[in-house]
C-alpha cells in the first residue's frame, strides 16, 4: 500500500521505519500517537492525491505542521498516514498595499512577519512558539499568543483558505476581499483542529506595525496585587497590546535559567506592552504605571530600548522551557475565566494544588483571562501522575464553574476531549459531530479528536518515559528545532 504513497510524492518523501516514525508520535503535549507512515507532500495536487489514497484505502490521515501543538491535535491517534506540511513552506504572494499575504501551510509564523517587516507590516498572531510553529497549524488550532489581547487570535486574521477535503476534493473558501457571500466557512474551518479538511493555502491579513511600543515590567509583593491590577486595567478601559503575568515561583525558576534580571524575591510580575501612535502609547503607558502603583506595585520598569524589550520577552517566551528543567513532567493547562475573577481564581488554584501536594506555577495571558497553571511532577514517583491529573481536573472544573472555558488557545485535540461535556451538552456535541460528518463523512481525517472517545474516558495518558515537555523532538525531519534557547522544542506557550 505504501507504494501508492511513494508514487505520489516520491520514495524519499515517505517515512515508514520504526525509528523515524517515533519522532512523529509526539507534539508539545503530554500525548502520543504513532503514525504508520509519514508523508511530505510538496504541493496541493500531491495533497489531493494523498487524500484520495487515504479515502480509497480506508487509512486514517492527519495533518501536521511543525509539531508544536499542545493538545495532540496533529498526532495520529488511530495510526495511519501523517501528512507533514514542512515542504510546503513558501510565501506565495504579498500584497503590500492591501495588506494581504498568501502562504502555504508550512510557512513558519515568524518568517511571515519577518518577510513583511521592512514594509512596516506584521502577521499579528504571535504564539510563543512562533519561531517554529507553522501558519497552517495556527489556522487549524486558531492559535493565540500574548499580543492577541489587542490584535485578536488567528481567526481574526484569516480571510481565505484552500482546503482539501478527506475525499480529495479541493475547495477555495472565503477570499482576499472581506465578506464572501454565503456561510462563513473560513470562520468554521479556522480552529476546527484539522478535522474538516487539510488546509493547503492561506490568505491572511497583515497588520501595520505600531508607530510606538512601550514595554513595562511591574513588580508586586503578592499575586493578589498583580491580579487586582489586571482587573483595574480592564475596568479602566485600558487595552494593552499584551498583559502577561508570572508568579513568584515561576519568576525564580525562569531567572535561574534565563537570567533576564527578574526580581527573584517578588510575589508576581506583570509584563505589559502598550502600542499605537506615539501619543497614545505614551498616554497608555502612563495610565498603566499609575494603575500598577495604585495597586501596590513595588517597582515599574520601562524597557529603554529594543534590547531591553527583547530581554523581557525572552524571559516570558522561554518560561515553559525553563520550567521543564525543574521537573521531568509538567502538565500545562489552558483554562479561561472572566477577567474579573482573576484574584479569587488564582487563590483557589493555589489551594487546589496544595491539597494535592503541588506548588502550582502560573505564567499566563492575564489580560484576557487565559490561565496556564503548571503542575510539575516526576511521574516515576508512584501516585504523583494521578495526583497531578486530579488537581488538573479540579482546576479546569473551577474555570468552567466561573463561566470560563477549558481551552483558550491550545485546542481540545486528544488531550481535552473528555472535558468537552463540561462545556457542551450532548446535543451541542451531536450537532458539532454532524458538522464534522458533513465534511469528513468517513471520519478518516484526524480521527479521535475533539469529541469524547469512550475508550479513553476519564483518563489522561501518561507521557512516554523520561521525556519532559521541554525537550525538543530532536531529529524530527524538516521540523524547526533550532539550537538557540528560544527555539528549543515545541513547548513554548
Amino acid at each position: 500500500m505504501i507504494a501508492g504513497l511513494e508514487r505520489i510524492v516520491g520514495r524519499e518523501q515517505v517515512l515508514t521505519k520504526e525509528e523515524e516514525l517515533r519522532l512523529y508520535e509526539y507534539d508539545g503535549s503530554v500525548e502520543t500517537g504513532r503514525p504508520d507512515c509519514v508523508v511530505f507532500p510538496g504541493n496541493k495536487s500531491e495533497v489531493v492525491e494523498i487524500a484520495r489514497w487515504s479515502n480509497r484505502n480506508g487509512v486514517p490521515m492527519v495533518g501536521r505542521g511543525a509539531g508544536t501543538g499542545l493538545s495532540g491535535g496533529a498526532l495520529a491517534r488511530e495510526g495511519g498516514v501523517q501528512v507533514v506540511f514542512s515542504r510546503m513552506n513558501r510565501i506565495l504572494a504579498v500584497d503590500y498595499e492591501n495588506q494581504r499575504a498568501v502562504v502555504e501551510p508550512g510557512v513558519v509564523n515568524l518568517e511571515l512577519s519577518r518577510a513583511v517587516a521592512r514594509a512596516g507590516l506584521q502577521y499579528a498572531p504571535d504564539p510563543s512558539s512562533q519561531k517554529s510553529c507553522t501558519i497552517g497549524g495556527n489556522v487549524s488550532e486558531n492559535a493565540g499568543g500574548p499580543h492577541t489581547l489587542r490584535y485578536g487570535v488567528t481567526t481574526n486574521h484569516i480571510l481565505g483558505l484552500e482546503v482539501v477535503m478527506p475525499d480529495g476534493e479541493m475547495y477555495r473558501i472565503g477570499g482576499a476581499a472581506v465578506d464572501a457571500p454565503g456561510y462563513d466557512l473560513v470562520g468554521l474551518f479556522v480552529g476546527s483542529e484539522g478535522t474538516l479538511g487539510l488546509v493547503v493555502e492561506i490568505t491572511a491579513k497583515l497588520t501595520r506595525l505600531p508607530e510606538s511600543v512601550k514595554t513595562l515590567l511591574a513588580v508586586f509583593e503578592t499575586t493578589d496585587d498583580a491580579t487586582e491590577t489586571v482587573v483595574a486595567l480592564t475596568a479602566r478601559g485600558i487595552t494593552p497590546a499584551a498583559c502577561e503575568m508570572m508568579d513568584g515561583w515561576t519568576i525564580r525558576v525562569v531567572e535561574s535559567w534565563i537570567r533576564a534580571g527578574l526580581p527573584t524575591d517578588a510575589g508576581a510580575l506583570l509584563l505589559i506592552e502598550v502600542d499605537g501612535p506615539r501619543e497614545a502609547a505614551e498616554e497608555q503607558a502612563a495610565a498603566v504605571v499609575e494603575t500598577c502603583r495604585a495597586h501596590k506595585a513595588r517597582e515599574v520598569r520601562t524597557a529603554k530600548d529594543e534590547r531591553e524589550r527583547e530581554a523581557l520577552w525572552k524571559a516570558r517566551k522561554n518560561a515553559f522551557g525553563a520550567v521543564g528543567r525543574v521537573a521531568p513532567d509538567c502538565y500545562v493547562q489552558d483554562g479561561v475565566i472572566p477577567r474579573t475573577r482573576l484574584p479569587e481564581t488564582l487563590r483557589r488554584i493555589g489551594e487546589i494544588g496544595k491539597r494535592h501536594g503541588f506548588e502550582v506555577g502560573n505564567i499566563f495571558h492575564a489580560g484576557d483571562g487565559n490561565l496556564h497553571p503548571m503542575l510539575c511532577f516526576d511521574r516515576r514517583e508512584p501516585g504523583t501522575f494521578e495526583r497531578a491529573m486530579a488537581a488538573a481536573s479540579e482546576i479546569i472544573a473551577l474555570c468552567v464553574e466561573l463561566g470560563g472555558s477549558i481551552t483558550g488557545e491550545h485546542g481540545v485535540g486528544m488531550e481535552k476531549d473528555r472535558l468537552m461535556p463540561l462545556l457542551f451538552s450532548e446535543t451541542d456535541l451531536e450537532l458539532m459531530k454532524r458538522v464534522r460528518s458533513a465534511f469528513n463523512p468517513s471520519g478518516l481525517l484526524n480521527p479521535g479528536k475533539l469529541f469524547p472517545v469512550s475508550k479513553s474516558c476519564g483518563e489522561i495518558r501518561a507521557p512516554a518515559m523520561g521525556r519532559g515537555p521541554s525537550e525538543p523532538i530532536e531529529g524530527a525531519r524538516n521540523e524547526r528545532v533550532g539550537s538557540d534557547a528560544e527555539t528549543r522544542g515545541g513547548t513554548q506557550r
Partner: protein
Amino acid sequence: MSGSEEKLAQSLAAIAGEANTSGDPSATGEYAIHGVTPKAMVRPANAEEIAEILRMCAAEKLGVVARGAGTKIGMGGAAARYDVALVTTRLEKVHGYDPGDLTLSVEAGARMADVGKLLGEHRQFLPLSVPYQKRATIGGTVASGVDSPLRQGYGSARDFLLGAEFVTGDGTRAKSGGRVVKNVAGYDLHKLFIGSLGTLGILTRLNFKTFPVAEASGGFLALFREESGAIDFVRRIAQSPVAPATLEILSPAMAGVLGGQARLDGTELAPVESWLPRSGWAAMAGFGGSEKVLRRFEAELGRMANESGAAGTIALDEGQRAQAEERLREAIPLLLEASPAATIVRASVLPSRIGEIFAAGRRSGEKHGIPAAILARGVGVVYVAFLPGTSDGTIFEGLAAAASEVVQAAEAAQGFGWIPWCPDGLKNLATIWGSGRPDAALMRRVKQAFDSGGILSPGRFFGGI
C-alpha cells in the same frame, strides 16, 4: 381564515399562547415578505417554545422565517415556502453584562437601542452601528449580516461574537463558543449564523465582547473634485499611523441622499446640511482617543488630504462626528426611502480596487439612465445604490442589468458582489447572489447538518439555500 390556517394557529397557540399567535390575514399581512403572506405568526417567549414550534413545523414540513423587528427582512431571496413567521421580539432579556470583563450575553430579540443604552451607562459599546438602530434586534443584526461603519476600527461581528445559543431546524437547542473573550473549545458554529438569513437555525442568545468608549472623539472630512483623490486619501491613511474607527467615501449623489432632511421611525435626524458638502466626493474619517491623539490625527489627515489634492477639509467636532455616524449608520434606510425601486449592490473588493466598482456603478447608471449613489468603506466594502424615480415595471430590466453589471465588476476585480435590497419584482430577474461560488457545495452540506428538513427560510439564502 381557512381550515388549515386555523388549525396551524391553534397548534402554535398551544405552545406560545393565544395572545402571541395569529392566523388571521389581517394580522399576518404585516409579516408578508416579497408579497407572500404567512399562514400564521407566532411570538414565542423563550428558546424552549421556539424548539417546540420548530419540532412541530419540521414534522409538518412547514416553512418558517424567523424575524426580529423585521427591519431587514427584505434582504435575500423569496422564500420557497413561508408558512410561519416566527417573531423573536419577546426574547429580550440581558442574561449577563459584566462591564469589568467587557462581556455581554443577551437574548436575540433585544433591541440594539436598548443594548446600546445599557452599555453606554458603563461607557462601553458594541461596534455594531447598524441601520434601523431604534427598532432593530441584535439577533436580526447578526443573522442579516449588515455591516457597520465601525468595522474599520473594530472589525465585523465575526470578530467579537463570542458564542451563541440557537435552535436548529429539527427543534434541537444547541450552542457554541462561550462567554469569555478567548476560547477555542469546539467548532465556532456561531460564526456560521452571521449573515445566514435565518437558514441554519434561530438565534436565541448571543454573547459578545464589548468595548470601552474612547476618552474623546472627532472626525475629519476631506472633499475632492474627483473620486481618484478620495481613493488616494484613503490609501494614504491605510499606510499611516492614523487608526480611524470609521472611514468612508461618499459619491456626490450619496452625500445628497444622506445629507438632506431625514426622518426615520418618526424621529428627525440631526441636521448636517450646514457642514456636509453635497458636491464632490467626500472622504470622512471618525476616530477616538485623547485630545492629544485627536490633534495628531487631524494634523496627519490634513497633510494627507493636501497631498491627495483635496479641494477642502473640515475637522469635525464630537457632535458632528456623531451626526455623521448616524447618517452613515442609517444609509440603507435613507437610500431605500430615496427611491420607490431602490436597488442596492453590496460589493467587497480589495481596497486598491474600489475605483473599479465606482466606475462600474457610474457607467451602469449612465447606460441604463438610472441615478447611482455610492458609499465605500475603507475595508473595501462598496454599496452601489441605483435610485430610479419610478417603480414602473418597465424600468426593471435596466435596473436588473445595472445591478448585475456591478456584481460582475466586483467578481472581475476578484471580489464579491450581491444584491441585498431590490424591489420584489426584481428578486427573480437579477442574479442577486452573483455568479455562484465554487464552495456552494460545502455550504449546502452545512445547511443539511443544521436543517436537514429544509424548513428554515428555504430558498432565501445564497445559491437558493
